[in-house]
């Protein structure tokens, strides 16, 4: 058995070396500056007659005023519900009849949106985007309709153990920071929002100095320039200034159990992570892949799923926000084995911190991370997502050329250092939703809501 294993491995290592020798073609990103001074990053691809525009306004739901949680999300569902000469139904009908996809999303740090259109409807699509940003109506009827829709959606999310566990984690970790509040608001805060709040949101948040634009697909730089002006040129030069304090992780190491009569307990765990611009970020990325990021090959997957059959899945991920950097993860398991699962999780957390990783384990992780990178460029959305992240995270327009080398230079010593810095089983903060029996060590019980 071992001999066959070794033979197969040598074949695949040869393949890996082959890959490293030939840098994978991904995408060519170029900067387009419009006549009016709007900057967008463009990846031209004329293979399919469609265009995607991803845009981001920095500053997100963390800026929702106290008591008005959910404002950014409320705005996100109303921008396409009537704008310019179109009332709500006319706007929706024009989108549908021209197969134009337009949507907005409120995150804690950013307010983002995306437009996708067939090339033949390009100008109309950009015009509709322009109207949604510059001339949204917020008519009473759609405002009340979408308020009802958000309330329904909120009720549904309060049934969902994954959502409850995530919200409980953020509330436990950041009780005194905007990050601890729900992006989707509460029934009370949604009821408190009015049209003046929505108009104020648009006036304060949509501007040219906090705007990031990425365009991918069937369009040339020459055609894009004037469209950038038509779409975004009318925005005010500057967004209102804002300040969000750094988020300090409170209650580190706590285990909160939200009781709920369900057969499987859902767990969210997390601790402080690492900033995107930290020199050890790439070492941390590789470390996390080995710990719980590599879907079917991580240590947590092996120990929790493959060896013990405790869970269908377990994963971890780095989550660098603007005001806190986190290392988070999730798992779900039957009530009777929840305590055991958390014990295994803490044990693996500690083991990686103490022992680091081996050369072979590191090489295999790097082979996957670098080798799979080109797969992310297979769709318009994939490319647009990466190019947008490059801008938001200030990675530089040449990032795609440098990225795999940044991974390749990570050493065993780098991973050991960063694991010691990040992984402390004592400060790992855990929330559980369910009816675990026995309770995990140190659990604090909390009733739902």
């Amino acid at each position, binding site marked *: 058995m071992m001999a066959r294993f070794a033979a197969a491995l040598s074949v695949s290592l040869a393949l890996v070396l082959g890959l490293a020798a030939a840098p994978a073609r991904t995408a060519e990103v170029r900067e387009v500056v419009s006549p009016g001074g709007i900057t967008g990053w463009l990846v031209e691809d004329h293979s399919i007659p469609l265009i995607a525009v991803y845009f981001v306004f920095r500053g997100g739901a963390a800026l929702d005023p106290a008591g008005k949680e959910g404002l950014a999300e409320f705005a996100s569902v109303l921008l396409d519900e009537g704008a310019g000469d179109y009332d709500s*139904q006319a706007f929706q009908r024009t989108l549908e009849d021209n*197969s134009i996809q337009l949507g907005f999303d409120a995150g804690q740090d950013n307010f983002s949106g995306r437009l996708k259109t067939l090339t033949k409807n390009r100008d109309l699509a950009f015009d509709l985007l322009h109207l949604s940003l510059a001339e949204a109506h917020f008519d009473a009827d759609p405002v009340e309709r979408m308020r009802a829709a958000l309330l329904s959606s909120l009720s549904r999310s309060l049934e969902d153990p994954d959502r409850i566990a995530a919200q409980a984690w953020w509330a436990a970790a950041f009780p005194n920071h905007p990050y601890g509040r729900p992006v989707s608001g509460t029934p009370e805060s949604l009821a408190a929002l009015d049209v003046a709040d929505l108009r104020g949101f648009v006036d304060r948040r949509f501007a040219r100095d906090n705007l990031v634009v990425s365009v991918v697909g069937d369009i040339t730089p020459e055609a894009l320039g004037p469209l950038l002006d038509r779409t975004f040129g009318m925005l005010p030069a500057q967004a209102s200034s804002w300040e969000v304090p750094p988020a300090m992780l409170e209650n580190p190491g706590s285990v909160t159990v939200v009781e709920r009569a369900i057969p499987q307990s859902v767990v969210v765990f997390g601790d402080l992570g690492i900033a995107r611009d930290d020199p050890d970020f790439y070492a941390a990325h590789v470390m996390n892949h080995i710990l719980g990021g590599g879907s079917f090959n991580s240590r947590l997957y092996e120990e929790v799923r493959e060896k013990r059959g405790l869970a269908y899945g377990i994963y971890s991920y780095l989550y660098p926000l603007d005001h806190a950097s986190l290392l988070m993860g999730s798992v779900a398991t039957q009530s009777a084995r929840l305590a055991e699962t958390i014990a295994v999780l803490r044990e693996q957390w500690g083991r990686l911190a103490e022992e680091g990783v081996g050369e072979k384990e590191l090489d295999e992780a790097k082979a996957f991370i670098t080798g799979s990178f080109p797969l992310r460029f297979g769709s318009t959305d994939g490319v647009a997502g990466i190019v947008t992240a490059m801008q938001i995270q200030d990675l530089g327009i040449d990032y795609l050329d440098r990225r795999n080398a940044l991974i390749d230079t990570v050493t065993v010593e780098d991973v050991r250092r960063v694991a010691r810095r990040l992984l402390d089983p004592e400060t790992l903060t855990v929330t559980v939703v369910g009816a675990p029996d026995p309770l995990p060590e140190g659990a604090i019980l909390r009733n739902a809501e």
Partner: protein
Amino acid sequence: MTIRPLAAAAPFAARSLAALLLLVAALFVPGPAGAAIWNPKTFTLENGLQVVVVENDRVPAVTQMIFYKVGAADEEPGKSGLAHYLEHLMFKGTKGHPNGEFSRLVALNGGQENAFTSRDYTGYFQSVARDRLELIMELEADRMANLTLTDAVARPELDVVIEERRSRIDNDPRALLDERAGAVLYLHHPYGMPIIGWMHEIEGLTTEDARAFYARHYAPDNAVLVISGDVTVDEVRPLVEKYYGPIPARGIAARQRVQEPPPLTARRVEMASPLVRQPEWNRSYLAPSYLAGESDQAYALQVLSGVLGGGATSRLYRRLVVEQKLASSAGSYYSPDTIDLSRFAIYVSPRDGVSVEEVEKAVDEEIAAVLAEGVDPEAVARATARLESAAVYARDGLQAGARSLGVAVAAGRSIADVEAWPERIVAVTAEEVDAAARAVLRPERSVTALLLPEEPAQ
């Protein structure tokens, strides 16, 4: 913007949640989009393996997807969940590549992979850089013929499947209700069984059950192989012959499934739970598919779904959400891809303070209006144009076309049939939509499902 709940359980159980989310998203894409979109090439090996190649050189990568013509609806009574359990076990190794090595080698070569089980088929895929195609082909061909299963690896995996069922179904009242509504919609046909299986039957599955199921169904003459990406059919053919060619055909028998008796009774299921905060109303009608029942209605029903419940200007959304303000969301969906009878479904979330009875009355009135007056020809034209455009979006992506083509061919449809989709959609007339609506939207074909909140017992 419409905010809609996932009204129905996904038709697939996948190996990971990430893949499931993709599949759920795919469920709501009008499709399969076809006609001269993918221009696939096909050939068949002597051992019966059908091969479909979709050439697409956008990125230097390639996807291999294999579909076995066996799904949850092909399980024996008492063995529900077996097709899906075997899907999990297909990663447990062969003599040549012991347990764990398959996924390890795929990852080591920068590959992504997953698997999925539906009622009609079981699928596996990997995406890799184009020069790694040979490796994944060798691995996939190996496990077609040489899977080795021991209790030591199979028993913990059964626990994993049980946890998967708890995650997807038992923890979620909506999924539980949908499972029961499905069981009532199909009185006799095995589509009424949950793909993942009933818990008491999953618990009884054995390693020997999985071995026997594998021996009976996994063979080249019961499979469709799709290769999509930056390769040509001329490059693919020798590799397929080298790795899959030597595997002997097994003379797999055609599927035998019991069929539904004519539906005669409207049915109703209701579940109240203290875990529910947002009530839900939905109704499923037994409906033709591309291959079952009045299959020429399959195109008209896709258009009907667009007119009735596809988006913010559809009849149901306009009537219930915009005008009458009874609901926070409303819509419909229909997928004709199944081998046997499919379902046409309508879902509504009542607004706070509105009863499910009021919502049901409004839906019934709208359906009655459609049946009495027919659909607006202009609405039909709008819906068909929108569906036709979806064919362009369907060309976007690393795996573009692979799934739609594989599902169709595995079900027994021809490539030409798939490719004719846009022209058949645009040819649908308002009269055909009316006829399909009158044939399908009948109480005796339906199950109405109500999800209600309940005060917790003190």
